């Protein structure tokens, strides 16, 4: 898991009736995903009121008994929180508080709005009945969007057998993206609906499916430290900002969005200290690919050297660069499938606080470089650019100012004052 990540985790819910074997499915899927190197978070939805994670009589339990509404239990290597809330927490809000995982698997929470994996087990009588109804609905061509329990009943013109209620709230719905079952008719129904189905024991197949459709792609964040710095008179990367090299500020900001952190520079030897400073980040220092200076060669170096396909490029003089904005751009890239997500405001594009898809952009970048272009925007006409408007920028980073860059010593002093004010709360 990323340290204090701001990248939202994608989530999927495993749902089914009581005793359908959800926990076993989740347990196996988590073990397999973890074995494949993914970081997995889980949410267990407890349908009934009241549970205790700490043993009655223990200190934390006594805190709560005394009236504390939120209690954290912290130990080396472990942490837990238990809070008293008026209603039930929304699943989305819980997942939102679990950033930085490759995937979050929710057990239960059928109405969370998340995509669901429906579990039906033959040994569970309720599941057999649901599977039968599911199958009939599929045969009748009833869409998943409607209440097909009622629809099936109507088509059969008969009431369900007494004592075997089929809860319409616990049926597959339009949110169902896969079915895990050992009931042949459930497989058949899923096939009719065009939904993949997996055998109960087919953990590999299920995890392949989760990996392909749910697991968050990874992102390389590239901080561009190179450049001539003609107006600064010295390397912008090492110019002191609030007492430390400016690049340290940038790294400490954008690392919260990075699965991999790359610094591109024409003077790697001067930045080798970063590796000692942040050993846990495994920062890669990459020398500029081309001798030519300019924005486009910089982007080329970034895209060429990133391990992952999604590449956020941030200039090291963007004093207020925002990991939340990077994460929002990254989500938009995944959602739209665009070649790049680039903020646009009254100044035009902001190519140095944007996220690019290396596979889609590199050929166009190379082509424009061959033609001698040096502007970042030169290749924008040749790929599908998703423009990220200022309104969305402000949703991600309400304070704005993400694109302010320090070009001169005077800019630096000015941004330093802004940063100090921000630190002191005079926003």
């Amino acid at each position, binding site marked *: 898991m990323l340290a204090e990540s701001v990248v939202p985790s994608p989530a999927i819910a495993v749902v089914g009736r009581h005793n359908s074997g959800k926990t076993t499915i989740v347990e196996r899927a988590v073990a397999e995903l973890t074995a494949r190197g993914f970081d997995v978070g889980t949410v267990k939805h407890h349908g009934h009121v009241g549970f205790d994670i700490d043993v009655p009589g223990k200190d934390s339990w006594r805190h709560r008994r005394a009236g504390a509404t939120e209690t954290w239990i912290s130990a080396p290597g472990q942490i837990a929180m238990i809070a008293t809330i008026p209603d039930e927490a929304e699943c989305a809000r819980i997942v939102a508080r679990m950033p930085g995982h490759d995937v979050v698997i929710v057990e239960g929470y059928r109405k969370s709005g998340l995509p669901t994996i429906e579990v039906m087990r033959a040994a569970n009588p309720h599941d057999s009945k649901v599977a039968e109804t599911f199958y009939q609905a599929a045969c009748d061509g009833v869409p998943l969007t409607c209440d097909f329990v009622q629809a099936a009943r109507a088509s059969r013109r008969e009431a369900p057998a007494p004592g075997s209620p089929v809860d319409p709230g616990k049926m597959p719905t339009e949110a169902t993206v896969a079915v895990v079952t050992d009931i042949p008719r459930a497989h058949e129904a899923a096939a009719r609906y065009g939904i993949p189905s997996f055998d109960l024991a087919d953990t590999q197949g299920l995890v392949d499916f989760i990996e392909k459709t749910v697991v968050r792609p990874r992102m390389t964040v590239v901080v561009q430290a190179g450049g001539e710095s003609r*107006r600064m008179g010295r390397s912008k990367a090492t*110019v*002191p900002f609030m007492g430390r*090299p400016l690049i340290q500020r940038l790294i400490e900001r954008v690392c919260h969005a990075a699965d991999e952190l790359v610094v591109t520079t024409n003077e790697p030897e*001067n930045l080798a200290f970063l590796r000692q400073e942040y050993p846990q980040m495994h920062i890669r220092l990459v020398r500029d690919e081309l001798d030519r200076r300019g924005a486009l060669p910089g982007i080329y170096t970034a895209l060429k050297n990133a391990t992952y396909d999604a590449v956020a490029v941030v200039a090291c003089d963007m004093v207020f660069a925002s990991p939340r904005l990077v994460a929002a751009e990254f989500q938009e890239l995944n959602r739209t499938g665009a070649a790049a997500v680039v903020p646009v405001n009254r100044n035009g594009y902001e190519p140095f606080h944007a996220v690019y898809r290396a596979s889609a952009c590199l050929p166009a970048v190379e082509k424009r470089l061959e033609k001698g272009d040096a502007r970042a925007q030169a290749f924008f006409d040749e790929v599908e650019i998703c423009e990220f408007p200022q309104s969305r920028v402000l949703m991600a980073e309400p304070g704005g100012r993400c694109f302010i*860059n320090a070009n*001169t010593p*005077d800019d630096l002093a000015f941004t330093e004052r802004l940063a100090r004010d921000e630190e002191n709360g005079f926003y």
Partner: protein
Amino acid sequence: MPSIADSVELLQSLENTGIVVEPTRCAVVRNRNAGCRKCADACTSQAIVIEPASNTIRIEPGNCVGCGTCTTACPTGALEARKPTDVALFEAAQAACAANEGTAVIACAPMYDAAKDLVDSAKLVRVPCLGRVEEGLIVSLAAHGATRVRLVCADCASCSESHGIDMAETVVANANLLLELWGSDVRAKITRKFPSSVRKVRKDAYDKNRRAFFHDLGSEARDAVGTATDMALEKELGVESKTRLSPTQILAKLRVTDHGTLPHAVPAKRQRLLDALAALGEPADELADTRLFGQVVIDASACTACGMCAVFCPTGALTNEVDRDFSALVHYPGACVQCRTCEDVCLKKCLTLSSEVFVRDVADGRIERYDLSSNAKNAGTHTILGVAQRTIGGNIHD
């Protein structure tokens, strides 16, 4: 009383620290695009290492022979001699000049050491190399009663420290030009022989031999004590630590001031030169082409008033008229030291520096004013104020 051996050891250790570096004044430390390499070019022992990529300058102690030529070459005062200091050297030269009836004699160390038995050490001063002598010293001596200045030099071609003669010739030519323009009859000259006035009478040469040795050593020891005291004082005041600052600490000292520029400092030697010239009186209304002063010429049709020239000018010869506003620049040729940082950092290549100045401008403190307010609008796209205002809307100072 320290033994002779102790004294020698002390002198050697001071030899290594004879040149001090004030990095914040170095044009390249201030801006790595500055092309000034005057010190490194003047140094023939590759003792000065300038690394623009990391904005650093340093002296390789193993290579440095302590000739001091680099301190003469450095326009901005980033390199200064400590053994002796410029002021101590001037005072010693002035005293020797008075003892020698108005002829100031400055001898290079190899020459002085060779002729030690033959000359009266009270009537001349010794410098490691004539490259150590700068115009301010010559003009100051002239302004304080010297009638002529003689720089006595050994055979440089055979000298292992033949560092400074080219510099000395330039300095003498520049100093003589200034003396002429300021109406002084004093001239400096480089000679291979001591003036007869400093030669000892032959008959007492032997008798005074030993005395002269001790006198000489005594004066060097005084020098050493003085230098040691200077250093102790600097340490006390925290000045000495400037030679030991880390690159980050040096860069941190180069913060932009409330003027919107890096800190400026006119070198002390320039102050002394201007004071000495003022003491000589009014100059002729002539142009002078020297290595000392400069006249900035800005092509206003190409300038965007970005202000980079003024931001990085080491001495403040070129600066802004109003704080944080570069739409009006002023230039004072008397404070200009021809480091040419302004030319090197100009983004539009619309600024040139002429080495020819009207000496009256220097004497009168006349300032050239460039009104660039009509050009400033072109710079808006690159200043943070412009960008920040557009980015966050409205006035960012609100």
